[in-house]
């Protein structure tokens, strides 16, 4: 399967200069990754790990104080290649919504509260689709039907809809132009469990039907487990591990991932879960060497001095850890639970 996105050694920093004091926040530091066609790529990371900065770059929303310091982000749409880090505003305008689309987080703040849903659709999609009047309305109604929303929604205002319906409307807005690449930023975080599963399965169905690629960002590992084909973990501005979903959960090769996977509680299992001490580093002054070393139980001398490269350790599985061979699944993770079951 061909790649639709190639990110090469991307560095995006926030550069600030207040009263002569220069400050540099390395929000995205040397990320290299690719996304294949027809793939759901999950990005996990905690707040202030740089994941939002990273997808802002992907979404071509690069505004000061953020600057691209090095690297490239190239989308391959058909035979057209667009590097969003250097493309002109007109070029970006021509791919936005039609090829590259974005499902945003807070559906309440995305939808204009004083305009009806049909007007919002018109504002967003009439121009990229090149339709108007009856034809446009029919298109919107057929599209909303795929999201299990009736035509009566069009006459409603955002506040008249429930949270789940609003989120489905935002998904509808982002997907109506059949984009090849969709970025979804925590689209279900504000929803409760029942609605969350419903919305996730809708995104997955739409993605399959349109054959598009999705980059899915959330800090909730159980969503990644069920949604993504591959998962990348971002810690302190760097991609530290990337693997096919199953493999990442069963055999993580980075201590941070091993911890994340093991700390997930599960119904039917009450083993004591480990808690990771410490806090994520400040990106304005990250620790030298591996940025995880102050919290890492496996840290040795080299970890404090040299940055581990992100290398393929198992086919299809990349990890940035000097001691990836010693990373064992922790108590509480599924791998350990499986072994315990088979012994019993």
């Amino acid at each position, binding site marked *: 399967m061909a790649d639709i996105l190639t990110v090469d050694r991307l560095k995006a920093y926030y550069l600030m200069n207040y009263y002569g004091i220069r400050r540099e926040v390395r929000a995205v530091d040397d990320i290299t990754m690719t996304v294949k066609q027809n793939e759901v790529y999950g990005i996990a990371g905690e707040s202030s790990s740089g994941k939002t900065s990273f997808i802002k770059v992907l979404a071509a929303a690069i505004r000061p104080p953020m600057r691209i310091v090095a690297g490239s982000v190239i989308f391959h749409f058909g035979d057209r290649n667009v590097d969003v880090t250097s493309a002109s505003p007109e070029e970006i305008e021509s791919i936005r919504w039609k090829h590259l689309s974005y499902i945003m987080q807070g559906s309440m703040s995305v939808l204009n509260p004083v305009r009806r849903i049909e007007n919002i659709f018109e504002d967003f999609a009439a121009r990229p689709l090149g339709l108007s009047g009856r034809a446009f309305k029919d298109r919107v109604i057929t599209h909303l039907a795929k999201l299990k929303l009736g035509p009566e929604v069009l006459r409603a205002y955002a506040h008249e809809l429930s949270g789940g319906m609003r989120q489905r409307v935002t998904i509808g807005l982002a997907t109506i132009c059949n984009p090849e690449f969709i970025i979804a930023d925590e689209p279900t975080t504000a929803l*409760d469990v029942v609605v969350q599963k419903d919305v*996730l399965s809708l995104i997955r169905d739409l993605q399959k039907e349109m054959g598009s690629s999705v980059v899915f960002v959330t800090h909730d590992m159980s969503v990644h487990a069920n949604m993504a084909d591959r998962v990348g973990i971002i810690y302190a501005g760097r991609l530290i591990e990337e693997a096919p979903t199953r493999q990442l959960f069963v055999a993580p090769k980075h201590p941070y991932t091993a911890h*994340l996977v093991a700390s997930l509680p*599960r119904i*039917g299992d009450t083993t004591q879960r480990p808690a990771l001490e410490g806090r*994520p580093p400040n990106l304005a002054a990250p620790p030298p060497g591996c940025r995880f070393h102050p919290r890492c139980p496996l840290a040795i001398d080299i970890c404090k001095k040299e940055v581990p490269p992100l290398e393929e350790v198992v086919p299809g599985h990349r990890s940035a850890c000097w001691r990836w061979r010693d990373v064992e699944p922790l108590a509480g993770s599924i791998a350990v639970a499986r072994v315990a079951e088979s012994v019993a």
Partner: protein
Amino acid sequence: MTALLEVDHVSKQFGVGGLLSRRRVDAVSDVSFAITAEVPDIFTIIGESGSGKTTLARMILGLEKPSSGEIRYAGKVVSGTGSRAERLEFMAAVQPVFQNPFEAFNPLKRVDRYLASTARRFLGTADDAATDKAMDEALQKVGLSLAEVRGRYPHELSGGQLQRAAIARALICKPSLLITDEPVSMVDASLRMSIVNLLKSLRDELGVSVIYITHDLATAYYIADRILIMQQGCAVEIGPARVILDAPKHPYARLLKASVLSAADAGQGKLMPATELMRECEELLKRDDAGRLVTQEDGRQVREYSAGSP
């Protein structure tokens, strides 16, 4: 067995809409449960958004008055009114921890000032040394220390540390009951378990009972002793947590369990929503009769409805 907290057939209605189109919303209807004084307990309230769990918590704290029914703490009726001394005594015993620690603390005020004012008010510590001692003791219980927190503003602490500081503030006056409203939903994945484990150790080591409000069934299974599942203001299933979560009986409880995304199925793409159960739950809400809670053999109560079509 004496009851620490009794929630006795409590209901709360809100009026919504304008003058002409006024209608009533039942936020909580006829909920009863009790927490005993002898055995510390983590009592979990689970439900979707809008199921009345936060309203219930606010009523227990005395921030909202029940429309009918009574909430009693140690035999005394909880209400926002009454004498100041009584109210202070109640506040010292029942303490809240809120969802978002970044909103619970004023960003312009240092974190230790909150702790200090709580100590002065509820413990009546007169001099700085005694206040500091009380603060440090409480912070030690949550795995922090006064040296780490003193002089810091909320933005200088991580979400997990700040939430622990919020719990420490609540612990200063040595409460017997903590009301925690979604305490981990705003905290990062790597720090979430440290808060959940902390609540567990409060129960086991300090004997504090906790009312844990959440919509996350997995953490509820992990720490809860008893659980109350609410659907649109009604208690639909209540009883021992593991018994209920292993095999829920009420359709809504089954729907909640079916909607949990499990990491054990990683990579299998199991996302089919339980449409059958969703329809069943919707039909239950349309019924005229509210049903009643029936006690089962295994100690739980499940809402059952009279036979026949709605």
